[in-house]
């Protein structure tokens, strides 16, 4: 028996001995810590930030969006020739570019990639190509396409846009319409170029189902090496990369998944990890103290708001039969309007900015984008630009809030009667908790009940403004600070939560119009009108504008942060300590 125990003891201690040996290599291996596993390295199929970070360096697009938001040619030789009132694009492709497996890139690959992203059963990026048709190869290194819209008058009865499964099929039924953001959208990840030949071969030998999971072929500065499920994905340098101006000295990029934020931070402080993103502000303090480098997004990374569901009889505006009022004429004497106003005046966003747990002062209160009417007359209703935002107290006016609330009937004052939806486990939940608490303190009743939901559910809810399900919603959206608008198809973000994905038929009309115009005042007006329509369905109380925070060890250089908040790592380098 003692022998058995001894043997077991040895077994248990063996790992320690193993662990003593550490690997030490000369090559530069940069480790990027991420909160979740990337999902699939097949660009049109899925895109969240961790996946984005990888796909951005594995693949190239015809055009690239720089960190300053400028469009520049990437696989294309130059900017496209645009003719026929902005509806026809001709693009020349660089010659001599090779995929990671050695195959050359030509127009066939581009056509293949577009087709796949636009029509594959599981593609999430169909919207990029929603207005493209008649995509053609002119010669081996030139393609052209047109932009337009499905025209029901051209199609036989019963034929719908969804049935058209190729660009060629679309041609007879589409009428040319210009789309100002088409080029911008071709810089999105969903427009990445893949190798046609490899795909066709993989289709035959059955390995295609695992594309993006166990193998991936792009043209980018780093190529796929291995994926250790749930742990890490390794990319290695592409020595034949066409753009010789890149300055990275990394031989290997390891994207390590570390789910628990505290573990991620601990790993970073232990220098087990070189780069981390979505740093909680509180941790940023700790990181700075312990000698790491904080990287912030250049501008404010969108703004957070509290949206009101106008179909709700509690905080919205409905007729006596319960149907929503959608004409945008607000009845300021309705009880629900008063409740809306009471909530508006109860909230003090500076608490969110100052909370060490939420923003730790790395952001500002923004008064931007308030539509005055749903809330009655407010001073300074035009709001301020984000850049001019202040750290004061928003519209906070507890006396007024209380006065409005006191005039309401008891039925409107039930604790927990206002249902507020927020993305589960996110900073929005914390913001919702602040709002809930402030409303409770100001009005004396714990009105708000928070429900945490998954991303897909949140997106569905925002779309179906079902008054039985939610009254309030804490959410985020990108903005164009220059024009006070958040509905802008030039946005670089395809997130489900982005406002360009907010659907109401009225808003869609204006969005379509904006899309068909070139950049300029008219286009902005169209988007502004779309925004007004959206606000009729969901007026919002702006809360804060927040910076995206990432962190790197001090010897890491060349990390760019794209406007959407993901890493651009083509130039990432480790500076060797000079001793």
């Amino acid at each position, binding site marked *: *028996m*003692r022998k058995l*125990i001894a043997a*077991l*003891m040895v*077994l*248990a201690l*063996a*790992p*320690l001995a*193993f*662990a003593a040996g550490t690997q030490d290599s000369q090559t530069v291996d940069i480790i990027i810590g991420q909160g*979740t*596993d990337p*999902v*699939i390295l*097949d660009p049109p*199929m*899925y895109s969240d930030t961790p996946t984005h970070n990888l796909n951005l360096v594995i693949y190239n697009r015809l055009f690239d969006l720089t960190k300053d938001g400028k469009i520049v040619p990437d696989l294309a030789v130059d900017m496209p020739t645009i003719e026929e009132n902005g509806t026809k694009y001709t693009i020349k492709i660089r010659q001599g570019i090779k995929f990671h497996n050695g195959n050359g890139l030509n127009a066939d690959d581009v056509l293949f990639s577009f087709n796949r992203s636009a029509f594959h*059963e*599981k593609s*999430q990026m*169909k*919207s990029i190509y929603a207005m493209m048709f008649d995509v053609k190869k002119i010669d081996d290194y030139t393609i052209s396409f047109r932009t337009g819209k499905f025209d029901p008058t051209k199609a036989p009865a019963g034929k719908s846009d*969804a049935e058209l499964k190729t660009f060629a099929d679309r041609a007879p039924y589409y009428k040319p319409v210009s789309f100002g953001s088409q080029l911008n959208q071709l810089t999105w990840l969903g427009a990445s170029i893949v190798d046609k030949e490899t795909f066709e071969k993989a289709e035959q030998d059955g390995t295609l189902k695992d594309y*993006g*999971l166990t193998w991936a072929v792009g043209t980018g500065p780093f190529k796929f090496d291995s994926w*250790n*499920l*749930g*742990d890490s994905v390794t990319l290695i340098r592409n020595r034949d990369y066409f753009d010789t101006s890149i300055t990275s000295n990394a031989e290997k990029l390891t994207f390590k*998944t*570390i*789910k*628990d934020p*505290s*573990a991620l931070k*601990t*790993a970073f402080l*232990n220098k*087990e990890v070189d780069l981390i993103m979505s740093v909680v502000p509180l941790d940023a303090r700790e990181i700075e103290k312990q000698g790491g480098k904080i990287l912030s997004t250049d501008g404010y990374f969108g703004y957070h708001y509290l949206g009101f569901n106008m179909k709700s009889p509690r905080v919205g505006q409905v007729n006596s039969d319960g149907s929503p009022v959608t004409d945008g004429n607000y009845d300021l004497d309705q009880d629900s309007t008063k409740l809306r106003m009471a909530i508006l005046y109860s909230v003090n966003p500076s608490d969110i900015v100052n909370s060490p747990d939420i923003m730790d002062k790395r952001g500002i209160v923004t008064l931007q984008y308030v539509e005055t009417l749903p809330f009655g007359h407010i001073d300074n209703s035009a709001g301020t630009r984000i850049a001019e935002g202040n750290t004061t107290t928003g519209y906070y006016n507890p006396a007024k809030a209380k006065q409005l609330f006191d005039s309401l009937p008891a039925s409107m004052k039930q604790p927990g009667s206002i249902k507020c939806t927020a993305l*589960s*486990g996110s900073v929005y939940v914390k913001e919702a908790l602040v709002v809930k608490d402030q409303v409770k303190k100001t009005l004396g009743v714990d009105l708000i009940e928070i429900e945490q939901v*998954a*991303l*897909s*559910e949140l*997106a*569905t809810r925002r*779309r179906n403004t079902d008054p039985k399900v939610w009254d309030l919603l804490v959410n985020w959206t990108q903005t164009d600070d220059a024009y006070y608008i958040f509905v802008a198809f030039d946005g670089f973000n395809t997130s*489900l939560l982005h406002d360009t*994905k907010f*659907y109401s038929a009225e808003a869609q009309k204006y969005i379509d119009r904006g899309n068909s115009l070139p950049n300029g005042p008219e286009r902005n007006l169209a988007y502004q009108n779309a925004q007004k329509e959206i606000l009729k369905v969901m007026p919002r109380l702006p809360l804060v504008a927040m910076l995206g925070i990432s962190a790197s060890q001090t010897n890491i250089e060349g990390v760019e942060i794209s406007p959407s908040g993901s890493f651009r790592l083509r130039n990432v380098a480790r500076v060797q300590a000079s001793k």
Partner: protein
Amino acid sequence: MGTAELRCRAYSHYMQKKDSMLKYIIRRLIHLVPVLLGVTLIVFTLTYISPGNPARMMLPQDSTDEQVAELEKAMGLDEPFVMQYFHFLFGYDGPGDSFDYKGLWALDLGRSYVSNRPVFGTILERFPNTMLLTFLALVLSIVISIPFGIISATRQYTKTDMAVTIAALIGISMPAFWLGMMLIWVFSVNLRWFPSLANPANLKSIILPALTLAAMNTAVQTRMTRSSMLEVVRQDYIRTARAKGVDERNVIYRHALRNALIPVVTVIGLQVGQLLVGAVLTETVFSYPGIGTIMVDAIQRKDTPQILASVVFVALVFALVNLGVDILYAFIDPRIKAQYIGVVRKKGGLLNGAKI
């Protein structure tokens, strides 16, 4: 805990009647079939009634109701419950190819809604990691618990005994996830001896999670060893040995220990299943890539096929491991049968509160 006790009682029923081992095994296997079917039915029903439309979740947000309906059809979600359960067990062949799968019997429930990987592929790839963690925890718990149990029993009512008893009591009362975080706080954050992230490639990093996972079992087994030793020491043959003048060390290690360990070993076997389940929380705390993290992730992302597959998989493995352990013991040592029934009847309570 009670589970083990009751299971044993049910089995003893068979044990007493039958004589041939083979018959016993076959009976046990037949008995297992309806249980496993029941388990799958429950898990499937839970997923079925859960709110949220998977088709809508998979589609981009701007999809029309027709597109949703089309996808529902492609995924077979428009069919009645019984048919869907049948598909779940024996496979689904829809109009398209993307959503086909061969069914649970072939360990194929299609692909994850999120990652597009075959759900069982992910599980089978990560399961060895969970097994490694479980194995290490098992070894640790044995190595720690048996010596301490013996020491405690041989020095009954001394300070050592008191210390071991109290430590074991604390062990069975400590939530594993909290213990894990405390270990991280002490050994990773403050002392920086171990990494806070566990990873099967780096065995040093698995020490903390293995300790965390082992804690509860160690405590249970220590208590078991102690009481089992005390029981044996009072028996006649030990008294005889002592009377014959065999020295105390020999009495303990030659005579008493051998018999005292039989129930302990049985309990250890039954706890293998518990360890597998306990790994769910431990893995989450240490970001360890095993089955537990798959499950928790899938639940957070509402990835239905992955939830189904991982819950069913763990439940099946749990049932099979327990069956295997039972059969193995009956096979190795028929004497255990008698011991088993006797001891568990009386001492089963010692395992109480041990389950998490």
